[in-house]
């Protein structure tokens, strides 16, 4: 059974701006959970709180608990660096390291944590690139610079880079928003594959995408989780009028 995450009374601020208010949510292991909501509702802040990336920004502050396998990642003695190793993240815009080759990008995280020899690294890179469905496209050009790839390939390389570290959870912050429809489709197919091995949490502003890929969906509005449940229920029988308003396109 894959580990899920439990969020308890989570609050987050940007300076004096209270962006997340008392969030309680259970993110199920081995499933894809989508966070949907209008722009500025706090869904990106929320996902960044799940691997302690929110506090990286100046003025970012968090209070509350997030549990991963019986450990509160905001616990007193917890090292944020180790948490981020266990909870990988893919960002909105593809951000491969431009000074590194495709291969070096794929193992850039692994190098930080494990001392593998060249063979070990190459194996890990291949494994991750296969998982990210990129291997076939790049196997003969691993030494090319990462930025020679197309945007969609770059994003899959970023996914591979995160997977190579062997995290338990994969966070994806609007991973397709900078991509064309074909690349989006590839990444959506990839997600279905990934949930067999990872707990996946995805932020999306695209409701169709949530409906297509997610097992569970949470609707975030004005810094609160208004409603969450199985995706089919959220989209067919929302309980809260605000959820209904959003998914029927009345606002957002």
């Amino acid at each position, binding site marked *: 059974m894959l580990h899920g995450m439990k969020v308890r009374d989570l609050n987050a601020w940007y300076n004096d701006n209270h962006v997340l208010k008392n969030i309680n949510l259970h993110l199920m292991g081995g499933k894809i959970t989508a966070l949907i909501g209008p722009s500025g509702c706090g869904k990106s802040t929320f996902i960044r709180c799940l691997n302690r990336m929110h506090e990286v920004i*100046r003025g970012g502050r968090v209070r509350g608990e997030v549990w991963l396998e019986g450990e509160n990642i905001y616990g007193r003695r917890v090292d944020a660096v180790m948490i981020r*190793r266990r909870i990988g993240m893919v960002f909105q815009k593809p*951000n491969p*390291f431009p000074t590194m080759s495709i291969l070096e990008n794929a193992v850039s995280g692994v190098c930080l944590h494990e001392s593998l020899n060249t063979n070990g690294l190459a194996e890990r890179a291949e494994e991750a690139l296969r998982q990210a469905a990129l291997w076939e496209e790049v196997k003969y050009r691993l030494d090319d610079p990462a930025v020679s790839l197309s945007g969609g390939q770059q994003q899959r390389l970023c996914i591979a880079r995160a997977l190579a570290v062997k995290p338990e959870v994969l966070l994806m912050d609007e991973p397709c928003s900078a991509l064309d429809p074909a690349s989006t489709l590839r990444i959506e197919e990839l997600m279905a594959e990934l949930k067999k091995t990872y707990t996946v949490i995805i932020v999306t502003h695209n409701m169709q995408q949530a409906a297509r890929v997610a097992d569970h969906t949470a609707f975030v509005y004005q810094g609160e989780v208004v409603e969450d449940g199985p995706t089919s229920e959220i989209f067919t029988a929302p309980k809260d009028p605000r959820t209904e308003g959003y998914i029927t396109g009345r606002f957002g």
Partner: protein
Amino acid sequence: MAILEIVRIRRGKFRRPGWFAFLARCFGLLIAGLMVLIIWEVGRAAWLSIHTFGFSFFTSSRWDPVHDVFGALPFIYGTLASSLLALIIAVPLSLGIAIFLSEMAPPWLKDPVSFIVEILAAIPSVVYGLWGIFVLAPWLRDGVEDWLGNALGFLPFFQGPRSGIGLLTAGIILAIMILPTITAISREVLVAVPQSQREAMLALGGTRWETIVRVVLPYGRVGIFGAVMLGLGRAVGETMAVTMVIGNQPKISLSLFSPAYTMPSVIVNEFSEAVTQLHLSALMEIGLILFAITLLLNIVALLLVRRIGTVPVQGGRM
């Protein structure tokens, strides 16, 4: 017909103030013209020396105005050695300050520190020289050089008499003088590294230090290299402060404690008392070499920057 007429008038309207374009072009060409003129004039004045000594001007260490025999090797050596020493001292320091300012310093500390570093560039070079003679040189002579000589005396760089006047002092003064240049440009380069790059490494479980070393510095390497080259250019051409502390003796010694002489220093020291044509011409040739070295430095820098600067714009193709 009417439309064509309007188009014609409009075009004319936008084209007519050609005076401005013409003037701008003239000023642009003026710069190039001036440059050519300088090379031409200095070259002409140096011709006698070039003709007399040929290539031996570069290889001879004999600088003898009494017998009208001139060789520039000690000055070339002094210039390169003092500038290199300055780089060795200044680059790590500048990079450290730049990294501190862009990656670590709390906001309230950034401006004061940048300000102090930039103020260093505003100090007149002759003041650096004075400080070098009266503060730095005695301090080096009585403390640092003894210590270096005792600890590292087995290396040829730290042998010989310790006077406090020489390459080491010049190198340190130069390092302080080029520090603001390298720091300011490197800092701007580092600040320009996209936040998404740092976040990528942090999200992989990198520490702040790993993020700086593996992502931020490589991303900015081209710009940092440019900063170092600019600093080197400044060090090579620096005249006053170096002249005051380097000892002005045309000899080549590996020891950092021994006096030396640089190209700008010999020009500034001797041009007013150069009585023979050949002496003056030899000084002109040194000026020409100095110019050539800085030019070469810049060309090499550009080529290198172009070679390692193969980072295309991100996400260009989708």
